[in-house]
């Protein structure tokens, strides 16, 4: 089995790094792989709540690095998928508690335990980001279709390439197809032209993501959500299979609503 270490980063905060990490990890585990996801945002941990595992934390990443516990003790098993694990970030420390070489050493050990390691990077371009990309085989940059997020993504891509961790893959998150159609939102083509990197997924805006985060159940487990489907497709692409991109036509338009009603038998 190939070991793959994937770091998800963005530069800008709030674009969906943690949501993407939780969902891609869950989708990979759902397909049967052994997956460990790691919250590298020391001091501002959140991957635990998105996965609904906040009540099970005993040890964290800094405890492992500083030798207060064994790796296995800090790996929290997911409630739903027995082959999915979380190593949470420490909440009462800061990013300087860990160095890039600590991370490389830690991940080398984690790799022996699983097929995939997913690292949720903190926002920014400082120590926490450096820690998160140091052990990566693949760096995934996530952005939103807005100027500030794309600008920060470009900066991050430059830094990742300078560290020789390229080629970077791109996830475009929270796209609103109806706004793109109206030419009031940057389109995937616009963004790809400017960033000039490989796209591995477009995730449409979906209010079900908010509900799923409220409940601590990743959206990929919801078979009806479009965002969930988009994240499942990203996982499949990371597994090396080709999946066509979702058809993100305006699903709230009158005709598509009617046609969906007909298809689902008026339900």
């Amino acid at each position, binding site marked *: 089995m190939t070991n793959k270490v994937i770091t998800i980063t963005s530069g800008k905060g709030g674009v969906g790094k943690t949501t993407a990490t939780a969902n891609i990890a869950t989708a990979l585990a759902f397909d049967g792989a052994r997956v460990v996801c790691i919250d590298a945002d020391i001091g501002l941990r959140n991957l635990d709540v998105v996965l609904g595992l906040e009540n099970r934390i005993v040890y964290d990443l800094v405890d492992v690095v500083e030798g207060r516990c064994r790796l296995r003790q800090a790996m929290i098993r997911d409630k739903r998928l027995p082959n999915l694990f979380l190593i949470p970030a420490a909440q009462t420390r800061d990013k300087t508690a860990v160095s890039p070489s600590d991370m490389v050493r830690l991940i080398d050990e984690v790799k022996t335990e699983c097929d995939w390691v997913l690292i949720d990077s903190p926002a920014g371009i400082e120590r926490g980001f450096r820690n998160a990309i140091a052990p990566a085989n693949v760096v995934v940059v996530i952005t939103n279709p*807005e*100027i500030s997020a*794309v*600008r920060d993504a*470009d*900066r991050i*891509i*430059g830094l990742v*390439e300078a560290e020789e961790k390229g080629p970077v893959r791109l996830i475009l998150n929270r796209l609103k197809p109806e706004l*793109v159609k*109206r*030419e*009031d*939102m*940057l*389109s995937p083509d*616009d963004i790809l032209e*400017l*960033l*000039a*990197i490989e796209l591995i997924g477009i995730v449409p805006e979906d209010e079900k993501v908010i509900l799923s985060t409220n409940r601590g159940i990743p959206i990929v487990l919801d078979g009806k959500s479009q965002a969930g489907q988009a994240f499942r497709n990203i996982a499949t692409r990371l597994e090396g299979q080709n999946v066509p991109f979702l058809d993100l036509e305006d699903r709230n338009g009158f005709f598509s609503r009617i046609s969906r009603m007909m298809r689902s038998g008026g339900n």
Partner: protein
Amino acid sequence: MSTFFDRLLGREKRSAKQAKDRLKLVLIHDRIDLNPGTLETLKDELIEVISRHVDIDPGAVHIKMTQDGRQQRLIAEIPINPSGRRRSRKNV
């Protein structure tokens, strides 16, 4: 804000187009770590150096930054005045 007629007459670009154009410029300067002011200085100095050796019309010089994948390229278009005119100007 644009009115319906502005849009109808194509007087205002859609916001996505504006975003893309603004982003394009911002990325150019971010990537080469050169602000617009420094780029202007570079242009002036370039003109000065070249005109020491050949006769050029500074007003016709066109210097721009283009994107080729993730690489930035500085393109300079410098029309050179015919040597005949140069000589005749010297004679005046």
